[in-house]
């Protein structure tokens, strides 16, 4: 699982000089990306709960396989959003 702990912290490099409007735009974009991250994490949690469907059938097995694959992709999405929020924050 990815974490949001370090998103508010500056990176290893000194921050670049940003203009006033750039700072505002970056702040707005960062807030939006963090909200998107939260929505995606919630969606992933819901999808994970759906794996517990109590129906034994070939179709249900395929459903579980598809949701498992989806969860792997969502993990990638979460990492990507986390990275983008970090970059925008700088």
């Amino acid at each position, binding site marked *: 699982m990815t974490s949001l702990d370090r998103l508010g912290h500056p990176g290893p490099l000194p921050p*670049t000089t*940003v*203009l*006033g*409007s*750039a700072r505002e*735009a*970056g702040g*707005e*974009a*960062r807030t*939006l*990306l963090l*909200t*998107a*991250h939260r*929505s*995606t994490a*919630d*969606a*992933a949690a*819901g*999808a994970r*709960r*759906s*794996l*517990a*469907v*109590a*129906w034994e*059938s*070939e*179709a*249900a097995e*395929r*459903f579980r396989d*598809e*949701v498992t694959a*989806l969860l792997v*992709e*969502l993990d*990638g*999405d979460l990492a*990507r*959003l986390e990275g*983008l929020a970090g*970059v*925008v924050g700088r």
Partner: protein
Amino acid sequence: MTGREPPPETLAISGGRGLARVDADAVQGASALLDAAAEGLRQAAGRCTSAQGALVRWTWTPDPLAAPFAGPDARAVAAAVALADRVSDAAAGLELRASRAARCALRLRLAAGLYRRTESLVEQAVGAFVSWNAVTVGAAVDLLVGGPAARTFVAVSQGMKGLAGPATGDPPVPRSVAPPPPATHEATEPSEDVAATLWRVVAPYADEAVAGIGVGLGGAGGLTHGAGTLSDLVDALLPASEVRVLALTDADLAGPSPGWAAPSGTVAEALARTGDLYAQGSGIVGRTGVGAPEGTLAVEQVTHDDGTTSWTVLIPGTQELLSPTHPFDAATDLDLMAHETADVSAVVGQALERAGADEDEPVVLVGHSLGGIAATALAASPAFRARHPVGGVVTAGSPTATFVTPAGVPVLHLENDEELVSTVDGRSSGENPATPDRVTVGRRLLASADAADLAASGSIALAHAMPTHLRTLAAARDSGNVQVAGVTGRLERLLDGTRAQTRFFAARRTTAGPDAVLAPGPEGAGEAGGAGGLSPSSGRTLR
């Protein structure tokens, strides 16, 4: 990373036996969770798109702290644009995941028999408008064909036929011709001409148009009564005739020996064999037709593990507009739609009796187009069921909604929105009678990701052809749908067996008098199956 958008669901399945309550609740719960996940992912994608907008907006917003007329910081702008692109990619990925989650939920519901395709309000409004206009058209046609002038014409026609006396002698039986080589690929290039484009738009409303015409034509009696009116008119114009079946030998088949020593076994194979009976073959890639003369049906005698016997009758569809030689024509279509005695129904009974079907041996009726109407009409007929217990019915591209099939008989209908024929009963696939035994699989070809389906969506002929119906069957089976699995399982217990013997029969219209007897010609071919009979390729003599 983003991959392809998953195809939309094209299937609509009604009828059949669903899940137990506890399983259905579990499926609804899981699919609801995934639907909520899809919605959350769509919202996340929307936030990303907004974030991208904020970044792009900055690149053209003047910097209030910069010197007047100073240009923008080129490096900062390039970085912001690159970042905006990455955020845009993230949004696209989340949209795709949202679609995939929604699709998973829908597929689960479809497999569990808990999904019904519904029309949007716009579709309902357009459908009502089409129906209303079609009623007017139907009423106008009714005035023409049912008015005094038409009644006089019919009376004169019947009087002249009476004066002429019953005709004698048989029409010449067409020889079978070699079937074309098997198709090597399916048509995958969608036609973009005006007619094809127009048809893709109006096809979903064909059932409303036909229902409206039926009401205008048949009044309170609806479509069945309207078909009866037209049927009477056509019958008055055609010479009186009776139908008989002629048993064919392998020598009468111009194609390679079908080698159907094994039973059909599956619904798909039974339908494919039905398609093989057309003179031009089925159009299925890799299959050659049997080279049967027009108007041929086949009867499979299936022997099962336990020594019992069942029968499978394969009935093809319309092969001519009006035929003097065989009953697979529009006149029979009208008779069937009017629920009147039809020649094809008669020849199925004759073929079973000639093949030796006993009264306690179940019969599975498999038909395409007209053949499917006949199959359903026979299953609905108490008189037919009194002679042959009906074990099941399979139809492809047949308007069957006006027939009531008996409880306990598994019935599977395959239809699609664009073929026109199955909506001639004035009902869309979702409006077919749905009972625990009767399952209809409908499909919207235009929504399919399959190139062959898209090509067929703009062509009534391709949409109605057997390969398209087989793709619908394959999609329904692949979906894992419990209703389809249930009905096909019941049908295939009868379609499959340890061995089979297939007999081919040519249905022939004859105007021979009551004392005329059909006899084999000089070639004196025997009957496939050894029961002795007549060969259409050898000609017939009266004695």
